[in-house]
């Protein structure tokens, strides 16, 4: 995805799906009159590449199937590509879902931290029973 970063295909699948999704999004924008020819040129180029990447993965699988033939343990090698794609897609869903959940959890943690902070302010301090929310004199009274 970025230079210097090795990959095992998750990024590739993510961007293939994103490029294909962009077509759907662009159709919606076009219907609302918010698209343009320039945008469509970019979207269709990227979607074309994405389709090409998907086709190449399928062809690799078919090619390996034929190459392996019935040669012992290698016979199953053609099935490796679909299996890898399936596994990688599953991991992708988990990674994206995990990131989204992390955000929700972080948001929750933020809210909980804010509540705790409020409680801390309202709670009487150990010495004298005063709270930060009230002047010490009133609390003592």
């Amino acid at each position, binding site marked *: *995805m*970025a*230079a*210097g*970063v*090795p*990959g*095992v*295909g*998750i*990024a*590739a699948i*993510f*961007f293939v799906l*994103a*490029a294909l999704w*962009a077509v759907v999004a662009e159709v919606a924008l076009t219907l609302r009159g918010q698209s343009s020819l320039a945008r469509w040129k*970019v*979207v269709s*180029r*990227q979607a*074309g*590449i994405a389709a*090409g*990447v*998907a*086709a*190449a*993965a399928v*062809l*690799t699988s078919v090619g*390996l199937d034929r190459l*392996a033939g019935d040669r012992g*343990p*290698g016979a199953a*090698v053609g099935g*490796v*590509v679909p299996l*890898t794609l399936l596994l990688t897609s599953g*991991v*992708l869903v988990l*990674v*994206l879902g*995990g*990131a*989204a959940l*992390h*955000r929700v959890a*972080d948001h929750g943690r933020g809210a909980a931290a804010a509540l705790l902070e409020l409680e801390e302010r309202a709670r009487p301090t150990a010495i004298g029973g005063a709270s930060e929310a009230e002047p010490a004199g009133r609390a003592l009274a």
Partner: protein
Amino acid sequence: MSVPGAPTIPNLPTSPVAADLTAIVPAFNEEATIEATVRSLLAQTFPPQRILVVDDCSTDATAERARRLGATVVSPPSNTGSKAGAQSFALREVSTSYVMAVDADTTLDPDAVETILPALRDPAIAAACGFVVPRRTRTVWERGRYIEYLLAFSFFKRVQDHFGAPLISSGCFSVYRTETLAEVGGWSARTLAEDVDLTWTLYQAGHGVRFVAAAVSRPLEPHSFAFVRAQLTRWSHGLMQNVRLHWRRILHLRFLRSVVAVLFWDAVVAPVVFLLVLPVLAVLVTPWALLGYAIDGPALMVPVLVEAVSRRELGRALVSMPAFFVLRMANAWFMLAAVWGELLLRRPLTVYEKGH
């Protein structure tokens, strides 16, 4: 400087009037490359108003060569220790609305400035970056990087741009709104990847970044393993440092969050797969497992060849393809070291080792 909040629209004449732009070129012992960089800036169809070469206490003729060509040379009192340090030193000298970062080993195509500046017409956009292609493709490392760049810039970065969040505004060639850049503190030396840090900081501050594919820069890429080692060490540690630094604030930026999550997963898992899982499977289960090193080759070739054809570089791309797999193994090794050091041992690398 521009008026706050007002759209600062660069004047884009057809005559060779200087742009409201300063080019900052940080340089440390770059006598072999600085002239080509400055010349390419002077040869722009829309040249920058000022070329500011930051001679970071070089011990060679970098300053003289840059000065001879008409660049303004500034020098910090002592070596700043990083590219970010040199760039930020120069930022205080900038009085134009826009500022451009160009590496001292990078040349720009003649229309690069003219092509990239209009991206900043939109006041929401604070930075724009261009396409990067290695200037030389002689060694296996340069060829590997050539394929990496074709892949990243022809497909991944264009999709990122379409969704409004290019992952990185590349350090070797990017243009910024000066005022915004100063507001976010310029280039920071707190990580080893100042461009990642700045890009993600801009997003968090609510600014936009664009990728302009037609604006082309040509850096010299590492030609030897020693330079590859220095560069990949810097990049991999810098990436991990930025993930640690920014992850919490990135969570709230949907597309960027997804891209960084995917990138992080790939960066962490791929080294384990390439350096451990595949060899073990090959020895213990079946030698066919070795296919895992190149099984994605045909799929990866699609965007590479599409871009190569449009650049009329099909032969170069085909010949260079095997080098990509060699470089990927080096990437895996250095990324593993970075994950180990930065995330597991929590020992951040702080020494900035120069390499192209």
